[in-house]
């Protein structure tokens, strides 16, 4: 069997037992990347030399008993909006084409402490703005299930790299669905944790009140293990939450007896592909057969989540992206007259169309005269959406639904109509607005052979509920490897 077919935890065990060395695993991943990148293009940067050196170092630390954790020696791919000291970090934007961070993101540092070997940085929508990974300045990532289709986004590179078996797991970030939607499209598992669980220090900010870092992997066990490793309270992130209940792997239990699961009727209506609907309801049935109490309910306000989200995310983006001005790092225009002209030209030449679109919208909704009508209105709507979820979680342990209304669209189909692309986020954005944890895991293939993702949503700080439900459901299936993985 091929090494890359293993999950991260399975590989970790083999390394611990001395059956596989860290160098062998790293070499195997680098070879897979070499063989598959031409077809998939998951990576922006591949650090072959750094990874091999690190593999040697980690092997020593395992041999002398310093590193004993489940992820020690396991090679990982990191989304290119997470700063990695000394390694190019572009956010898939021209404006950061040469940016070498002077520090490493806290979540990545936590992985390094656990013995991770970083293979490189994965492609994404520019500044995480997009749902297809097509807005990257460094080329389009393809879906490993069918290379004529998008991998989803914005963490499309991370999810495609896992599905193509170019790495054993990856980190992504999720502002409005950017881990869960591409996980769904690529047939892998991804978690967006409760807001504040994973430090955002070193994550290049998009919508700060919504952004969370999370794991992407082949199964629920990996995701729980990785999440446990990257979770930490960090005083460098003022929104970091001190949590105690973070032994997420303790929830890997095949038992959902008595668990109350609600399916929002509003998630099953217009716009949902019938094949996706059938697969989601079949998954719900499976959980019911395992002893869960499953019923449909009205969540309400679902149609207001996307407009509220785009106002808030664009507003925060326009503020966060003000730092890219051609002064301290990144791209600076060649010719300019004075400081303001340099700012404007550097930014206009450095940012792509989708990023400019959102900065313009964000600047507009924050401008005097429109602030109350748009920005504050969106924040009030967010409060109502949070209340709707609070009410639902008084009754249910887990909310079940699709991660996306369709399977992966074809390349080039989405960008022509931004509004249509935004509507694809209908089932994911409200989770970010309400700060909730969510997981997407595979629940079947459609008639085109493309993966369908099941989304499970938990109340704040209740990752264990969704991990338990996801794990129990996963036990009824076997992991399906993508065609590119089997090449």
């Amino acid at each position, binding site marked *: 069997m091929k090494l890359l077919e293993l999950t991260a935890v399975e590989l970790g065990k083999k390394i611990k037992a001395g059956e596989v060395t860290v160098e062998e695993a790293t070499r195997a991943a680098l070879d897979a990347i070499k063989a598959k990148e031409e077809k998939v293009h998951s990576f922006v940067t591949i650090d072959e030399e750094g990874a091999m050196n690190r593999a040697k170092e980690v092997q020593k630390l395992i041999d002398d008993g310093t590193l004993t954790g489940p992820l020690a020696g396991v090679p990982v791919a990191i989304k290119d909006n997470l700063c990695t000291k000394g390694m190019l970090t572009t956010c898939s934007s021209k404006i950061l084409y*040469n*940016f*070498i961070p*002077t520090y490493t993101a806290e979540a990545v540092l936590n992985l390094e402490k656990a013995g991770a070997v970083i293979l490189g940085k994965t492609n994404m929508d520019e500044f995480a703005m997009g749902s297809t990974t097509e807005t990257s300045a460094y080329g389009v990532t393809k879906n490993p299930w069918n290379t004529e289709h998008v991998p989803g986004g914005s963490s499309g590179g991370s999810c495609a790299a896992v599905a193509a078996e170019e790495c054993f797991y990856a980190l992504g970030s999720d502002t409005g669905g950017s881990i869960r939607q591409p996980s769904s499209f690529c047939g892998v598992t991804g978690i967006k944790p409760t*807001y*504040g669980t994973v430090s955002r220090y070193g994550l290049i900010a998009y919508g700060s*009140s919504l952004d969370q870092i999370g794991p992407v992997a082949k199964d629920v066990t990996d995701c729980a293990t990785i999440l446990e490793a990257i979770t930490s309270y960090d*005083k460098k992130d*003022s*929104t970091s*939450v001190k949590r105690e209940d973070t032994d997420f792997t303790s929830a890997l239990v095949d038992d959902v007896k008595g668990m109350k699961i609600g399916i929002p009727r509003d998630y099953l209506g217009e716009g949902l592909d019938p094949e996706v609907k059938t697969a989601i309801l079949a998954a719900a049935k499976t959980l019911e057969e395992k002893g869960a109490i499953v019923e449909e309910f009205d969540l309400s*306000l679902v149609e*207001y989540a996307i*407009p*509220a989200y*785009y*106002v808030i995310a664009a507003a925060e983006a*326009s503020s966060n992206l003000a730092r890219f*001005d*051609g*002064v*301290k*790092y*990144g791209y*600076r225009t060649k010719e300019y*007259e*004075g*400081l*303001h002209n*340099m*700012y*404007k030209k550097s*930014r*206009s030449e450095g*940012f792509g*169309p989708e990023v*400019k*679109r959102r*900065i*313009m*919208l964000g*600047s*507009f909704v*924050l*401008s005097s005269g429109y602030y109350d009508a*748009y920005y*504050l*209105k*969106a*924040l*009030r*709507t*967010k*409060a*109502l959406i*949070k209340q709707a979820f609070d009410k639902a979680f008084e009754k249910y342990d887990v909310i079940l639904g699709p991660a996306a209304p369709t399977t992966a669209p074809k390349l080039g189909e989405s960008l022509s109509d*931004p*509004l249509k692309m935004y509507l694809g986020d209908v089932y994911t954005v409200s989770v970010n*607005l309400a700060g909730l944890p969510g997981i997407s895991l595979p629940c079947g293939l459609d008639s085109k052979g493309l993966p369908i993702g099941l989304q499970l949503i938990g109340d*704040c700080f209740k990752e264990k509920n969704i991990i338990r439900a996801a794990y129990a459901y996963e036990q009824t299936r076997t992991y399906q490897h993508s065609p590119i993985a089997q090449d």
Partner: protein
Amino acid sequence: MANVISDETMGYVGILAKLELSEEEKQAAKKDMESMLDYIDKLNELDTSKVEPMSHVFPVKNVFREDVVENGDGGEATLANAPEKRDRAFVVPKTVDQ
């Protein structure tokens, strides 16, 4: 009701956003923004008069810590990323007239 954004407003937003758009880009951005705002206007169906704006889902207050340097002098490494530098400083075009 369909939103119409004037060229003046677009110009003003461009100043706020520090973006210099070509005429073609400006027209496209205007059209995009108008259709986005039409869609966002859906929020007006909701009565939010009794709802406080929620910026964070948790009651996050200012988080203070002692102002102690912990990461040392990263000056050289930081400046290595600068498009233009001189004597441990970032070089920018002249900002103040004499």
